[in-house]
């Protein structure tokens, strides 16, 4: 006999579908993902206690008899370790190539020590399929740092033959992505690109060879920054023609060194700028100096007198009007 006051049992949501643990496979778009052991152990302890509360998001790939994990690889690893025969899943429709890549980028953070080229190639697929090329938008879409997106796009700018060099199976022969990322500003410098002798492939090949053989003073990939700096300074000193000619010689000959790109006028300009800044700082400190507080600091006053004499002599030598 049912008591009229008895409440009906609460409605429970339907239980999620469960499937054998070994019918799942990790998402192949990010096989290099590594999970830190400590959080995994914490999750494993939790699953031992209460089971897998949040079903894994999976899909059946075309032609496959297995489920591919979109989200929940940590739970799946723990289930395997514990020996759970089944895991709960939410099966969704198979994502498109672009959707899958975006999802994987968002779930798995890129590790700093990973080869960047495979990531760049996938970003290339996204750019093509989504017709989206803006760094910030791609960063939002993928969860990759804007800096990583920018680096990947620099790699994609290089022709396919250089992508192959970055994907060489032999680590000794594989060219580091950083080499191309550092080279990019030189090969794309506006003054360089409009030079009548400029040939993109010849220049890239020459730089690769010089870097590999350590000729022309190349020691590290960061040496390209020196070249860029020389280009910028020469442009400021209105010595563009001269620096571009020297760069042509550097590309063509191993007898020309990176340091040879430094143009005297540009060097003087650079040193003058640096000295002006330093003098400005010293002047500000002298202005702020309280004579009463430092009255007993004889050494300081003597040095100031020396400075004044040196300034007068230098101004006279430079035929500046007396102040």
């Amino acid at each position: 006999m049912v008591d009229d006051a008895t409440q009906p049992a609460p409605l429970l949501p339907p239980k999620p579908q469960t499937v054998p643990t070994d019918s799942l496979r990790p998402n192949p778009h990010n096989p290099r993902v590594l999970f830190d052991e400590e959080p995994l152990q914490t999750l494993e302890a939790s699953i031992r206690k209460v089971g897998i509360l949040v079903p894994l998001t999976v899909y059946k790939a075309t032609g496959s008899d297995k489920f591919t994990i979109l989200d929940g690889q940590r739970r799946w690893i723990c289930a395997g370790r514990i020996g759970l025969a089944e895991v709960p899943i939410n099966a969704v429709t198979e994502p498109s190539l672009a959707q899958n890549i975006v999802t994987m980028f968002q779930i798995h953070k890129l590790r700093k020590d990973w080869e960047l080229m495979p990531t760049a190639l996938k970003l290339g697929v996204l750019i093509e399929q989504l017709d989206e090329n803006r760094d910030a938008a791609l960063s939002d879409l993928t969860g990759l740092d804007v800096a990583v997106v920018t680096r990947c796009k620099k790699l994609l700018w290089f022709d396919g033959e250089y992508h192959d060099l970055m994907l060489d199976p032999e680590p000794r022969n594989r060219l580091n992505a950083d080499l191309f990322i550092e080279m990019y500003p030189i090969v794309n410098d506006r003054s360089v690109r409009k030079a009548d002798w400029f040939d993109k492939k010849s220049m890239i090949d020459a730089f690769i060879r010089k870097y590999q053989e350590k000729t022309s003073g190349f020691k590290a990939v960061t040496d390209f920054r020196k070249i860029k700096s020389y280009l910028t300074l020469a442009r400021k000193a209105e010595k563009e023609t001269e620096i571009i000619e020297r760069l042509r010689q550097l590309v063509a000959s191993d007898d020309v060194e990176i340091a040879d790109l430094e143009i005297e006028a540009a060097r003087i300009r650079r040193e003058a700028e640096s000295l002006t800044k330093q003098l400005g700082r010293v002047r500000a400190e002298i202005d702020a100096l309280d004579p009463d507080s430092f009255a007993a600091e004889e050494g300081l006053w003597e040095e100031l007198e020396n400075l004044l004499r040196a300034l007068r002599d230098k101004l006279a030598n430079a035929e500046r009007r007396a102040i």
Partner: protein
Amino acid sequence: MAGTQAAAPADGELASASQMAKWLERFRAYRQPPDAASLEAWLGRFERRHLPLAHKILDAVIVVSELEIHQGYKSSLENLEGWSKSSQERVGRWFFVGVGSAGESGPAMLRMFREANGLTSERWQGYFVTTKDLPRLALSALDNVVFIDDFAGSGSQMVGYWPVMEELVASEATCYLLLTAVTTTAAEAISSQTELNLVAPIVLGHDKNVFHEACRDFSEEDCAAIEAYGQIAWRSWPRGFQHCGLTLVLSHKTPNNSLPILHANHAAWVGPFPRTLIAA
């Protein structure tokens, strides 16, 4: 493979005429086959007491001819499940990738593979891609990617590269690695540490490593002498790269896993099967 016993050399000779004739015949499949003068020059590098050992090494050399390589590639592909040149019988999409960048053995082997399988015409061009092309192919479990190379000695290169390959394939596409030859060590490493389906007509057991205990053809004393000469030929890897100690010679290039006394080419040592035709 060790040949039949030939007449011993006469006093003062580096090798008998019959030995020399036998070697010249067996080695003519190499791209630049050694002649009698170069073999004698090589034998002359050994101390007199080591001449029998040098003869034994030459007897042990395995030369794989270009024809054998072609036949191997042909039969390997024909036996892959789902492959057919007929679109009616072919299952899924197929892509062939030379392992390595330009200048590496893979792309060079790809040319042989195409010839061997009659896939050289323009209409098959879309089947041949490089690793960088893989992400945009939207591969699925119905597709097949066949990586082509010539030889794996230790398997470490393929094992180390597999995560990158896997990420570029990024699907359940079936991945094959077609080789001309492989050592059992490499085959075990590749099979256990990658998802590549390895196919290689020639499998070299541990007995083909002259330094391995399974090899009965060379005594400990022989091995010590081979290693000592190997130090002159290649100081870093006197037993061959990754200590593989092989006597394998592929018609287009001797693997660096073979004994360096067979393939070095520099002022201090010139082997009968140099990897570089012009001395370093």
